């Protein structure tokens, strides 16, 4: 595994194991997450990509019979977000997430983006308005919705809804942005749109993205981790992983021999 010393670490996964009840899904996964870089998680369906991603913001704590062990250290303070004494709410306020299927609230466009601030008790109208506009701009949605902020978010198209969900996550300026196959439910044009957006977001954010689209990973991600049956097989820069994979399983996967 290559560790790049020229880059700042934003987070570090250390010996993370996970199981749903008796079913072991992650085996001692370790990997770095670099600041202002895009890290992609790839691998065949069911290998544990979503499970790993949802460990970052303690989503698993919402459900019974999930067990995990290991550390995810949030740099620079090196706080272990998986520690029992860290409140999951704190973790989720610091690490944002966008889901596979767009899930806007059945509220107005404005209220969707503002909700993260409202949760934090922000009341100042002008501040919320500024932040909503900024987030929608960053998500590339502002020009399309600026005239209809009070209209329901569910009336937007699928691609617009997903960008709204990205804006909603950005509005609270999370330290890391998690994206779980954000384009898998979208048409090719919306997909391209969101891929460009993600590349753009790298300037200001650290991004971890799950994808089963290898082109998407090689086009957008700086680093890629290949997972297989709950093991992290290979982690490297996307350039190296896609051109000169070291593990035969990685090679088989990226050349389409299984998947």
């Amino acid at each position: 595994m290559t560790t790049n010393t020229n880059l700042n670490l934003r987070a570090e996964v250390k010996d993370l194991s996970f199981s749903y009840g008796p079913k072991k899904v992650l085996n001692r996964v370790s990997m770095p997450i670099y600041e202002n870089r895009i890290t992609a998680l790839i691998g065949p369906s069911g290998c544990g990509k979503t499970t790993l991603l949802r460990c970052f913001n303690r989503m698993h704590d919402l459900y019974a019979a999930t067990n995990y062990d290991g550390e995810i250290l949030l740099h620079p303070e090196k706080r272990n977000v998986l520690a029992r004494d860290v409140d999951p709410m704190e973790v989720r306020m610091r690490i944002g997430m966008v889901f596979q299927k767009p899930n806007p609230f059945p509220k107005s466009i404005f209220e969707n983006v503002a909700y993260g601030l409202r949760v934090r008790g922000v009341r100042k109208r002008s501040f919320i308005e500024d932040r909503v506009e900024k987030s929608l701009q960053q998500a590339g949605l502002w020009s399309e919705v600026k005239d209809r902020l009070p209209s329901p978010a569910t009336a937007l198209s699928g691609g617009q809804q997903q960008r709204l969900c990205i804006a909603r996550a950005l509005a609270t300026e999370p330290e890391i942005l998690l994206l779980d196959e954000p384009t898998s439910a979208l048409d090719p044009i919306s997909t391209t749109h969101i891929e460009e957006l993600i590349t753009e977001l790298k300037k200001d954010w650290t991004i971890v993205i799950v994808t089963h689209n290898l082109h998407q990973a090689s086009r957008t991600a700086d680093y890629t981790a290949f997972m297989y049956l709950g093991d992290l097989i290979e982690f490297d820069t996307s350039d190296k992983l896609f051109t000169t994979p070291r593990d035969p399983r990685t090679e088989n996967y990226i050349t389409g021999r299984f998947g």
Partner: protein
Amino acid sequence: MSTAVLQSERAQVLDMRANIRRRQWVDLAFGVAGLLALLFALLTLLALIIDLAMTGVPRLSWEFFTNFPSRFPERAGILSAWVGSFAIMITTACCAIPLGIAAGVYLEEYASKNWLTGLIELNIINLAGIPSITFGLMALGLFVYQFQLGQSILTAGLTLGLLVLPIIIVTTREAIRTVPNSIREAAYALGASRWQMVWDHLLPYSSGGILTGVIISLSRAIGETAPLITVGALTFIAFLPHPPVMAEFPFLSFQWLKDPFTVMPIQMFNWVSRPQPEFHVNAAATGVILLVMTLVMNGIAIWIRYRFRQRLKW
């Protein structure tokens, strides 16, 4: 292909057609039988309602609503009965709605799923099916004898509250279960607490279903008679409960909660059991009012459900 094979295939097709025709016959026969059953049920109901309306509607007048019951049927009215029904509905709503919604939300979103909550769930569903007079007996023991609340509007309201509580709990749970899990996860992922998720999302998005349950439970409560007779409703009341507002400080009064009461179905029952046919007309008129109120409430419930379903898309 030989002709023998062709012929056997043709025979098969003919067979198949005969079989289809036979099954279509059965289809038709059931269709007709079902329609007849439906018509029979509907027409019987319609005849009953028309009969009730023809007897009762001519008796309806302003005085019928503003007169107390009387020995003289033409002077008797339902003032104390509808005021009693109204006061009890308010009491029932005030205790059963918050309790029922809170219990439903707790069971669905907070309680961990184990054998104890399973047992509680089972019991709530069973409670909804218990004969209402049983609630009357329990309430007589608990509210009248144990808590000494008397044979009052408060006792009656609490009794009907208990009666409809399971309905509200069950419909609340069903309503919040229709909110997709992805919405819960979206709220939690932004750092919402469980209460923020419930208050900002679950309750608003399921309010249509919850409101429907509330209205249906109240329309059930308004027609209940047996448990109220059990806890001691009077059949002849010629005065009104204390007014809820006063001229002097603190302006609000809850004295009416301790007053004796009667309600519309009991007034109706009382009139039906008299020998004079004029009283039966009064009973029919009261029945028409109850029927209309129930229909209106259920209509509102259906309308609310329809509106919310239109508005919410996931």
